[in-house]
């Protein structure tokens, strides 16, 4: 097993059949010090889970079989108890991943992250230049602060990923962004998928790449062959779970389909709730509108995006369809 990503997939495959939430994404806060114009977050109006409630959640996730724990936001460093949470997560032997804009990571925090053997830190960067990145984040100085922290993360031996959503606004800099990642010792990860906000607001997708540009960057490859009707469409709610800052349990961060509320029930109750079972009934066979689509074998359906865009998890989202279409037209491998 030389490629760790293959290992994760093989391992997750078994967990998915057993409905074990091996991957959990915990949104610690929806507060953020940046104002990125494409952000999908629809701020949770309820109070955030307290430190004790987050610690209890981590204990429950460990008991449920979660191994990979992603802490994300908003901006996670806005929580003063962040390192206490990370310390507990490592005590419980999670493989901890942090998603941050890194603007508030100081040297002492980075040293502690290294000491705790956090698996990796992903930092959002939206341009190769200060001008482009700060235009997206709408906060002057954010590029310099983020990249300064990334250099330090790399110096401390922490696996660092540069995550970039490719949009019409930064597409011209993608080579530069890739070069920047090399210079910072980071792994560049590009994602052309801009999604609607989690409240259905479509403003973010006005920034997405046009169809022709999209076809320039995606590989012309089928992502699966004929799929038996009973095959699950994705990992959401099967081996993947997402928890909102106030403790709402969702199948995926982009699928606001509450399975339960940690303020009134346990994680186990939410994970095994009637709604969870209902969503697990959605398989390829239920995607009737997709059955005859000529792009079907180029498509990874996303129930969350379907739900957000159409109000029905089984009706195809235009964003997913256009990626599948682009893949059919895309560049040859």
């Amino acid at each position, binding site marked *: *097993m030389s490629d*760790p990503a293959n290992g*994760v997939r093989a*391992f997750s495959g078994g967990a998915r059949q057993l409905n074990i939430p091996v991957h959990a994404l915990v949104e610690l806060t929806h507060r953020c010090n940046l104002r990125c114009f494409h952000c999908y977050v629809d701020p949770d109006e309820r109070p955030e889970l307290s430190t004790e409630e987050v610690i209890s959640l981590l204990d429950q996730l460990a008991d449920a*079989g979660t*191994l990979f724990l992603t802490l994300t936001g908003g901006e996670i460093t806005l929580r003063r108890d962040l390192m206490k949470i990370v310390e507990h997560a490592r005590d419980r032997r*999670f493989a901890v991943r942090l998603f941050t804009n890194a603007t508030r990571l100081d040297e002492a925090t980075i040293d502690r992250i290294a000491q705790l053997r956090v698996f990796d830190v992903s930092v959002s960067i939206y341009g190769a230049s200060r001008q482009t990145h700060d235009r997206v984040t709408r906060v002057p100085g954010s590029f310099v602060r983020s990249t300064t922290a990334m250099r330090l993360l790399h110096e401390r031996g922490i696996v660092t990923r540069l995550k970039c959503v490719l949009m019409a606004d930064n597409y011209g800099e993608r080579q530069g962004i890739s070069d920047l990642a090399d210079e910072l010792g980071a792994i560049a990860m590009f994602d052309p998928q801009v999604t609607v906000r989690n409240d259905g607001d479509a403003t973010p997708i006005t920034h997405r790449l046009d169809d022709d540009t999209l076809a320039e960057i995606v590989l012309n490859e089928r992502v699966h062959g004929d799929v038996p009707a009973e095959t699950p469409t994705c990992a959401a709610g099967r081996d993947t779970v997402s928890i909102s800052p106030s403790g709402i349990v969702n199948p995926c961060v982009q699928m606001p389909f509450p399975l339960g509320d940690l303020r009134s029930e346990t994680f186990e109750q939410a994970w095994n709730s009637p709604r969870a079972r209902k969503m697990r009934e959605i398989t390829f066979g239920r995607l009737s509108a997709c059955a005859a689509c000529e792009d079907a074998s180029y498509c990874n359906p996303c129930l969350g995006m379907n739900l957000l865009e159409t109000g029905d998890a089984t009706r195809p989202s235009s964003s997913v369809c256009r990626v599948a279409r682009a893949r059919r037209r895309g560049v040859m491998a």
Partner: protein
Amino acid sequence: MRPDFPCRAADTAFRMVDGEMIVVSASGSNIIGLNETGALVWEMADGSHSIEEIVAAVCATFEVEGEMARRDVFGFVDELEAEGLIEPVAEVTSA
């Protein structure tokens, strides 16, 4: 060199999932699954148990004969060390 007191590498994460101990390390490229015996060795490999104590625990738990258990545990610890999942033994240098 095989450690007398095996200790899991600090950068590992692990979880028992459906009866299998899944182990992953930040620096390594592998995700490995351990069976019941491997899981017992892994759980005891916290630096506070000697390798002979681990052998004795395997014998007692799985009713296997001592020599066979010793051979298996030693071989398994060697494998884990080769994978970087067990802390290497510190070199002792004389002044």
